[in-house]
């Protein structure tokens, strides 16, 4: 048997050659089918290039002044919605999260809480917003409810996983002193999960602001509504200004929350 003189690099991801080539083949067939089903209207794109240029111009030379009142109102709605919904979401997430942790909650409570989390996580904010707008009418209250609901799914799940991963010996030590259920939670569990809960809450504050910029498109108030209106009016200078504001606020809040998280954790 001849020994190969040249070293050949082993395949990186899938070792079995039959499986590897069939995966490649499947991907290729899918790509051909998928790309061929995309209809592209080149004349429409060509006509749109002019608008694209105007939009880029609007982004480079934004107009903050003409619609400053609308932008201000939208921003105030978005920011207040973000704060209230994050606080309300956290307040509800804590009991739900405790209920969804297998190591401290009884089975029926666990099932109910996990079901609530699954429902909240599987629907997009936009879809929830459509339903809440239909029920509560247009405006930031519908947005507040949407974001609070979405916060519950996110925070409770992560909190529950965190509680499931705590150091059991600490909870057991508290239990051994004769502490009741509440005391075990308060002295054995809470100190262990608190730093991460604070970090996650700040992170969710970020996400809620970003989402508040979107749900306005379906009528739930906030800066998204202003942005949608300005796009409908072909007022790209204002749209550019709003986008720049969103980017700046997200950058600031991301920087601020990372600084705060460093101090807390």
């Amino acid at each position, binding site marked *: 048997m001849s020994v190969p003189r040249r070293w050949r690099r082993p395949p990186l991801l899938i070792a079995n050659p039959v499986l590897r080539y069939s995966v490649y083949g499947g991907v290729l067939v899918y790509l051909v089918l998928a790309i061929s*089903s995309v209809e592209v209207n080149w004349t429409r*794109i060509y*006509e749109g290039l002019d608008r694209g240029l105007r939009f880029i111009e609007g982004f480079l030379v934004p107009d903050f002044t003409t619609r400053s009142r609308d932008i201000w109102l939208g921003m105030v709605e978005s920011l207040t919605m973000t704060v209230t919904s994050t606080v309300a979401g956290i307040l509800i997430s804590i009991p739900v999260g405790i209920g969804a942790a297998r190591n401290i909650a009884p089975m029926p409570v666990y099932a109910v809480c996990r079901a609530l989390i699954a429902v909240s996580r599987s629907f997009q904010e936009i879809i929830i917003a459509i339903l809440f707008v239909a029920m*509560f009418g247009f405006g930031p209250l519908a947005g507040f409810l949407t974001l609070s609901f979405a916060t519950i799914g996110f925070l409770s799940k992560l909190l529950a996983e965190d509680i499931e991963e705590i150091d059991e010996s600490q909870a057991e030590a508290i239990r051994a002193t004769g502490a009741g259920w509440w005391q075990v939670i308060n002295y054995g569990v809470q100190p262990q999960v608190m730093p991460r809960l604070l970090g996650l809450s700040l992170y969710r504050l970020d996400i809620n602001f970003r989402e508040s910029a979107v749900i306005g498109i379906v009528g739930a108030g906030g800066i998204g509504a202003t942005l949608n209106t300005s796009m409908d009016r072909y007022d790209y200078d204002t749209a550019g200004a709003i986008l720049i504001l969103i980017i700046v606020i997200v*950058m600031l809040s991301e920087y601020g929350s990372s600084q705060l998280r460093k101090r807390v954790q």
Partner: protein
Amino acid sequence: MPVSIRDGRPVWQRRTPARQWAIWAAWLALVVLTVYCWQVMNRGTIWAFVEDAPQQAADLLSRSWPPAWHYLDRLWWPLWDTVNIATLGTLLGIVFAVPVAFLAASNTSPSTAILRPLALFIIVASRSINSLIWALLLVAIIGPGLLAGIMAIALRSIGFIGKLLYEAIEEIDPAQVEAVSATGASRLQVMDYAVVPQILPAFSGISVFRWDINIRESTILGLVGAGGIGVQLESSLARLAWSEVTVIFAVILVTVIVSEWVSAKVRQAFI
């Protein structure tokens, strides 16, 4: 550990009084801020509509049940389009995100003065703007349809994949890079043999994770005209055909669950 004297006996406390007061003040400030925001937010709320809500909800429920299952026949094509938007958008996003990530990682970036801040800015800008807003812009520029949806998903994915990938690149083991460069390998060969194998599992995981998120997001892009099942949702909502909306929600729910399952399986296989 501060100890105060009470009734002539030392009593242990966890915090100094000043620190205790500071924590109380922070909580008070948070409560005040929340109440103030609540009041500002609800200045324009018409409470009559809110009191009406349970009735509206009951009405909505009665109109959306039973679901119009026959409508399902007209949802298969939009569903196929939705999956394509997510998949092609993710692929396109990866194509742009990989070079951006290599430029943004401090250990592989060719110029830390100009290119790295630029790459970081691209990542932040792409991450701050939701794919629905990207779709809103793109529909205005290149017209409604699948292409706008694919590009919106791609533009949003650049920031997500780019950020997680450049963090993975910065965390690689430098000893392997040194070993490969010690053999006299060129810059590109170092990338190929020392950097890429180390980040490949993370990269596959991140991409599949983003694909899963993109499936969720592509279901609603149609609301602004960017193709997929959202177009059907928009038209059913506009006609107040809530029994069709129920069917669409059911289809979206099943799709999301399946994609989450697929992504969890694939990530398990890679990592």
